[in-house]
């Protein structure tokens, strides 16, 4: 595909991610921190976010699977997930954490499990979207083009 077409697809895709609320201004902030001296910064941070989230989602699954659920522990995990999703601009994931914390406070296992399901879905969605975005970036670079700055 031509560089210009790739770049256009990239910009449109990025726009849609913001419009649909998958990403928020914090993601743009991360992009602004990337430059020639740190060309992979966003990918690196997002990769850390993926690792962190997957660990936390596993921990949450296990914690909610206990006969006596430790809601403080569950809440602590959700708090961490909220923090890291907020730091990378993964808005929908972050927003799922708020009702989740409420369910922890109410010590409602069923509700927590529903929240966990929701977060897992949102996480997988945003992971998929970001990977698509990074793939597009790689294609642009491979075709000799520059990655457009999307404000």
């Amino acid at each position, binding site marked *: 595909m031509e560089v210009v077409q790739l770049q256009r697809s990239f910009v449109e895709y990025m726009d849609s991610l913001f419009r649909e609320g998958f990403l928020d201004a914090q993601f743009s902030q*991360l992009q*602004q*921190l990337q430059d020639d001296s740190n060309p992979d910064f966003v990918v690196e*941070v997002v990769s850390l976010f993926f690792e*962190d989230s997957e660990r936390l989602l596993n921990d949450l699954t296990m914690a909610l699977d206990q006969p006596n659920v430790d809601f403080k522990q569950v809440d602590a995990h959700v708090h961490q997930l909220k923090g890291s999703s907020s*730091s990378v601009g993964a808005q929908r994931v972050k927003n799922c954490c708020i009702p989740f914390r409420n369910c922890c406070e109410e010590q409602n296992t069923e509700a927590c499990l529903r929240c966990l399901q929701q977060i897992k879905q949102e996480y997988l969605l945003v992971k998929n979207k970001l990977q698509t975005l990074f793939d597009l970036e790689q294609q642009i670079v491979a075709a000799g083009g520059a990655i457009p700055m999307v404000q």
Partner: protein
Amino acid sequence: MGMAQELHVLAVDDSLVDRKVIERLLKISCCKVTAVESGRRALQYLGLDGEKSSMGIDGLKVNLILTDYSMPGMTGYELLKKIKESSALSKIPVVIMSSEKILPRIDRCLEEGAEEFLLKPVKLSDVKRLRDFILRGEGDDDKLTDKKIKEACSRKRKFQDDSTTQVTAHDIESSPESSASSESQQQKQSKIG
């Protein structure tokens, strides 16, 4: 001003993602960064944990400690207290970061001697402002002015309403600006609750 001074910042955060971001924010603002994952590690680095201080040499002097509030083991508040209780380190400015805007928490930190309380996610503009403030303080003979600002700030805190999201010793100087930006911040932040 005009001094090509590189600040050395000790960043403390249990989140790997946040450490990476804060490190980049600081480096891009021309600061040297040492990032650690806990209050205990921070104290070790500063030489307060019975270990030999890594700060023996002037070159490694820490100009600012930027710490997360909610950390397992030792909170940012507890770390702040330990630093302010130490004669060797109490002069180092400490800034607390938190994703939660809990006013009693903010008050407690400021009263314990924190320079500022930043709401996460921390932005480049926050870091730049911090750096400028510290640079001014480093070369400044008039430490009394800063102290006065802080005292006025804690008095002001008692009257401040919910519309302020950043609480700094500079609210007094830059209040028209900060209330304008904190209005839009408030709208954005109210979702996070």
